[in-house]
């Protein structure tokens, strides 16, 4: 069965079905309001005891901050408003207690959905979750606890609510799969933070499996395999192990090989990472720093905007992992294809032309400041951490970030270096102006190609027109490099172009200073660099600028990656 790949890895085991106990509430009318009020009070008592236990367990297992969230839920449950509100509904509508509770929860959730702040709009789900628990407590006289999970089980549920996720004894879970939800559901965030493979949004999943049957969850491909035998599991595990072994050999080679051209001039290859773990892995592959820290990946591991202190810890962790090399943090880049669960924004007709990158953070009070404070703090600790602004179209945006940073950075401390992500045609056309305001440039080719060619690469009808070696793209990059180099500003590339040998060679020919690639592409990039000389790259530069099509450009590049690179591929490919 196919779903959304939400957390990478492969997990296999027996299914544990996590079922919500159904509470019949539809149109349940009360016969006896007085007794319904009694049931409500009893239910609140049962649910409160449950939340107290939950908070204690979370404090012990996860930490104080997460436990305090559930203490807040306990207060909402036992506070004056809920009981009073439900009472009123029971008496005026003559409803049964659990029906009245769900009505109250729905009404309250709706009020939260009306609020301005993304954070508070997201709280609607918490209220519904609390309401469901209370309804269950009233109807059944208890709240079901999955309790002891069997060892190495695959948890399958329609969806995982915050309290549902909190109740799992995650040490026994080898994989999670849910019928509802996407990459940013609670289940997905929990799975990613615990490194458990997870697939979400699998239609018909709960009906399609039996408790105890064997399944394989492939979080890389987003597949739940229900037609499984022990032999098949063994085979899948072996295949993963083989892949890991080959990868291990590539890694060892990469770590012990310097990035140099055939004639010995050095090349800088950094890594794109999503957090501390990635950064440690990048170091093992011999990356020379982090050319792109996707801060939205860090944000995705939290159920709400991480605080300044949480961010400081995350950024510091990345810096420590690759020390003494530099780390470039891209400011939160959410919206369009990168939604954050707690950062809901109104639906847009054209999300890629909408509220994304720096525009999104400007529209939100607080989140930009928090991020800048955290980065400034890590800078003041002496780490070489830099700020990269995504989706820039004007000098004013850069000045705004610089002045915020000046206001927020500790007095008399060194300021972090500021750069921009060149991904809009506007930033290419005005690079002369922008260059005076910045310390470095990083070209985000994925969006630059899309915006320059006006092609949505996710649309199969035009995907073939998405060409990274299109003359317009090559000339755009050439222009940025020329202008920046006149002012001694270094230019890196952190898009997909930097991760593929052929396009990476084109970037080196255009004079790019740093390739920031996905971690497992680093070995073949080092091998590709070693196959070409600076002289060849110089010739290629002129050839690329004279091309009239991407195919022509490719025809110039491919022969350069001939024999020595092919031999490397035979061993490590």
């Amino acid at each position, binding site marked *: 069965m196919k779903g959304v790949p939400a957390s990478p890895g492969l997990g296999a085991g027996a299914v544990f079905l996590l079922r919500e106990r159904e509470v019949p509430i539809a149109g349940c009318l009360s016969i006896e309001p007085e007794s319904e009020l009694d049931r409500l009070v009893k239910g609140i008592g049962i649910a409160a005891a449950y939340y107290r236990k939950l908070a204690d367990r979370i404090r012990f297992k996860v930490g104080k901050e997460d436990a*305090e*969230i559930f203490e*807040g839920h306990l207060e909402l449950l036992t506070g004056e408003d809920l009981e009073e509100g439900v009472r009123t509904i029971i008496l005026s509508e003559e409803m049964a207690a659990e029906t009245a509770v769900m009505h109250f929860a729905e009404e309250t959730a709706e*009020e939260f959905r009306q609020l*301005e*702040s993304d954070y508070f709009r997201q709280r609607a789900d918490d209220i519904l979750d609390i309401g469901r628990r209370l309804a269950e407590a009233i109807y059944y006289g208890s709240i079901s606890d999955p309790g002891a999970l069997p060892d190495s089980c695959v948890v399958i549920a329609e969806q995982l609510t915050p309290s549902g996720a909190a109740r799992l004894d995650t040490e026994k879970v080898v994989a999670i799969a849910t019928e509802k939800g996407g990459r940013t559901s609670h289940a997905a965030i929990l799975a990613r933070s615990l490194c458990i493979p997870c697939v979400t949004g699998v239609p018909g999943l709960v009906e399609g499996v039996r408790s105890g049957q064997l399944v394989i969850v492939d979080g890389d491909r987003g597949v739940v395999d229900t037609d499984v035998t022990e032999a098949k599991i063994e085979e899948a595990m072996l295949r993963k192990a083989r892949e890991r072994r080959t990868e291990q050999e590539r890694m060892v080679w990469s770590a012990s090989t310097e990035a140099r051209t055939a004639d010995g001039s050095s090349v800088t290859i950094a890594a794109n990472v999503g957090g501390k773990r990635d950064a440690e892995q990048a170091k093992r592959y011999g990356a020379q720093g982090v050319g792109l820290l996707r801060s939205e990946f860090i944000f995705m591991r939290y159920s709400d905007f991480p605080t300044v202190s949480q961010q400081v810890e995350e950024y510091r962790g990345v810096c420590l992992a690759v020390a003494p090399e530099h780390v470039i943090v891209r400011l939160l880049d959410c919206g369009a294809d990168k939604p954050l669960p707690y950062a809901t924004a109104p639906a847009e007709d054209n999300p890629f032309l909408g509220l994304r990158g720096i525009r999104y953070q400007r529209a939100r009070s*607080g989140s930009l400041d*928090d991020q800048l*404070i955290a980065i400034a703090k890590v800078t003041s600790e002496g780490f070489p951490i830099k700020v990269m602004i995504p989706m820039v179209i004007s000098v004013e945006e850069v000045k705004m970030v610089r002045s915020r940073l000046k206001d927020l950075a500790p007095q008399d401390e060194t300021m972090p270096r500021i750069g921009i992500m060149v991904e809009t045609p506007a930033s290419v056309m005005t690079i002369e102006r922008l260059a005076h305001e910045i310390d470095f440039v990083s070209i985000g080719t994925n969006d630059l190609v899309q915006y320059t060619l006006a092609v949505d690469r996710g649309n199969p009808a035009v995907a073939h027109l998405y060409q990274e070696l299109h003359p317009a793209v090559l000339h755009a990059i050439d222009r940025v490099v020329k202008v920046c180099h006149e002012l001694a500003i270094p230019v890196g590339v952190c898009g997909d172009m930097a991760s593929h040998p052929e396009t990476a060679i084109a970037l080196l020919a255009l004079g790019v200073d740093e390739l920031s690639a996905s971690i497992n592409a680093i070995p073949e990039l080092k091998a590709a660099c070693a196959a070409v000389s600076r002289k060849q790259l110089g010739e290629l530069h002129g050839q690329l600028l004279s091309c009239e099509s991407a195919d022509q450009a490719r025809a110039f590049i491919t022969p350069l990656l001939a024999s020595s690179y092919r031999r490397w591929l035979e061993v490590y490919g």
Partner: protein
Amino acid sequence: MLEETIIVKSEEGLHTRPANKFVQLVRQLGCHVTIRKGEKEAPGTSLLKIMKMGVVRGDEVLLICDGEDEEGALDTLKRFLIEGPAGEGQS
């Protein structure tokens, strides 16, 4: 009765965790507390009503304290809204 307008500066405004701490703090104080943001108003002891105001950093709120040691109470709550829950100041 004392009242004061405050710009909330604590990092998380009145999100679930800090709002709950605010409520517990109000309960320890001897006086009656009301908090107001724009048209909305909530008793200081009601977490749900406080959260429904959706107070974030940078918001302007009016604190009203009435009763025993209202001065001390106003001072304590003001500090809370500006510095955040104790021990969690800006790091």
